[in-house]
């Protein structure tokens, strides 16, 4: 968005823009805490954090209705948090505790929550796309006006499941919004080293899906694009596709030595930190005082610390429960 557009958006509803800032800070701070807890060996397995990409999920989630569905990837702590899964339940899950949102069965990469229709947490790249197509098909067959939103990285567009899902969604005119989080690297493989055509929105257009690229570091731009797309999908205009151009500031996972990209490139992107951009805009417009900023950070910190305390106080699922949930439990007739 231009400076003028940003100023206008802030003037229209400063409270809402502060809310978006707060949501991004929640994700940022939660992820920073995860990294610290990983280093302290409280969290194990693979850990992928969303630092740098917060504007994407924040802007998209902001326009969803409570009974819409969300399918996300293994870099999904922020998505779960923004969708309304409690920080407590997410953190407890990462501790592998029974109080976690998946009772310790899923961990960082597989967060699920029925109450908010959060369908993972899918750790197979592109594996979630067909699920989103099916969720949307169920809504269409049932005559419901719900929307399914599917997040995936640009690495997924090399997978067959991506192309099969684009085709099915468009062929059947399904109410699904595809959100490609293009952070330029599939683990360590740069987009231009893995794709013959690097214009991802163009690929979606090839399936006759309305698609456009958005500045994924600008939460107001993301929100506006997402609102336009979700409104269209809900109105029955078929699948839509957003390519959200973003960047992860941290390594792919806690095991990534980052040999594949230059520090200068990371620093360049960090100058466009989505949180700093929005905070500066709010301050420039006189809509965020130093006290308000400090209070916001304080509140977020309280939430994160409470989540850590909740997870610390959690209990281990009894080993006797190990084989539960392989098959559904039936009540005796």
């Amino acid at each position: 968005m231009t400076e003028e557009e940003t100023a206008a958006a802030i003037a229209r509803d400063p409270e809402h823009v502060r809310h978006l800032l707060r949501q991004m800070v929640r994700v940022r701070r939660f992820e920073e805490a995860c990294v610290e807890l990983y280093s302290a060996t409280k969290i194990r397995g693979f850990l992928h954090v969303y630092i740098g990409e917060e504007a994407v999920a924040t802007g998209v989630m902001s326009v969803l209705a409570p009974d819409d569905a969300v399918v996300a990837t293994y870099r999904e702590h922020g998505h779960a948090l923004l969708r309304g899964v409690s920080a407590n339940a997410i953190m407890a899950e990462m501790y592998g505790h029974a109080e976690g949102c998946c009772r310790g069965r899923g961990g960082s990469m597989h967060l699920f929550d029925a109450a908010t229709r959060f369908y993972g947490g899918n750790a197979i790249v592109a594996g979630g796309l067909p699920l989103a197509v099916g969720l949307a098909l169920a809504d269409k067959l049932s005559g419901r006006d719900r929307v399914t939103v599917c997040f995936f990285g640009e690495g997924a567009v090399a997978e067959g499941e991506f192309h099969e899902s684009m085709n099915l969604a468009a062929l059947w005119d399904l109410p699904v919004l595809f959100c490609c989080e293009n952070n330029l690297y599939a683990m360590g493989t740069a987009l231009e080293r893995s794709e013959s055509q690097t214009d991802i929105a163009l690929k979606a257009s090839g399936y006759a899906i309305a698609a456009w690229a958005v500045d994924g570091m600008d939460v107001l731009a993301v929100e506006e694009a997402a609102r336009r797309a979700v409104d269209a999908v809900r109105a029955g205009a078929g699948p839509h596709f957003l390519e959200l151009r973003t960047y992860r500031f941290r390594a792919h996972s806690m095991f990534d030595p980052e040999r594949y990209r230059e520090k200068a490139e990371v620093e360049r992107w960090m100058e466009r930190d989505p949180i700093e951009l929005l905070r500066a805009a709010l301050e420039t417009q006189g809509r965020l005082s130093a006290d308000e900023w400090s209070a916001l950070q304080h509140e977020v910190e309280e939430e994160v610390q409470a989540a850590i305390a909740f997870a610390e106080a959690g209990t281990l699922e009894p080993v006797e429960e190990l084989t539960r949930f392989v098959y559904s439990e039936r009540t005796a007739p």
Partner: protein
Amino acid sequence: MKLTYREAMRAAMREALQRDERVFLMGEDVGRYGGGFAVSLGLLEEFGPRRIRDTPLSEAGFVGAGIGAALGGMRPIVEIMTVNFSLLALDQIVNNAATLLHMSGGQFNVPIVIRMTTGGGRQLAAQHSHSLEGWLAHIPGLRILTPATLEDARGMLWTALEDPDPVLIFEHGSLYNVAGELADDAGPVDIDRAAVRREGADVSIITYGGTLPTALGAADALATDGIDAEVLDLRTLRPLDDAAVLATVAKTHRVVVVDEGWRSGGISAEISARITESAFYDLDAPVARVCSEEVPVPYARHLEQAALPSVERVVAAAREVVGPGG
């Protein structure tokens, strides 16, 4: 009434579509073409394109969409033309359908039914002749059904659709034209227990699916030699009906397992291992296995026949375990 296995399967789908609005069928050529094996012939005309959905050749896509639709409250029947093509959808079957309930801590069950043809014997060569149901029976979270009779072709589907978890139904291609009598009121059957298809006292032939007729033919041949063979149809490969297996072992003390899959690491190995673990001292002879030769199934008829389990091989194996005194 007299009908074929194919017609029994079709009747089961028709009943399911009539009984439950949430049920729909999707797969390659299930609509206008009438099904690759003509199982769904006529269903498009009866139920319309909303519920009888032709899909593109996108096994991972439409199987995954079936899983998503199941999560979304539907009761999809997904037809994969053959098990060979299901390999393109293994990610969705193994990484999603089988795991979501567990990974979500019990929040998301996947009530999907996936039907597919399996097996060889029709000179279609390796890429159309695999028998991989034993592979999929390796996966916790799935239920694996292998209807071998008209009653099961007619009755397993509805029970599978009522199951809250993913069920895979393997229909052996050689069974579709098998015709016989089926009671007019035939309906849903259990999908938990194996069934003794022929009572016998001297040797147990344990099998399922497409090799049930082979086993029964072998039992007839053995009878002329005075060997009284029992034939146990497993019906369900996961979970296995251990009690039925152990009961027949306790009765005859001699076992031949017949499985069209390969011997190495196959379902026959699992059955043999369970017998060894739980009924070793009931055995009067080592467990014998008749499986497919360890080659990709060849095209030429004589080679293919030599590769697959046959009545002759089952008879020979049964004579061997019964021994000269039998």
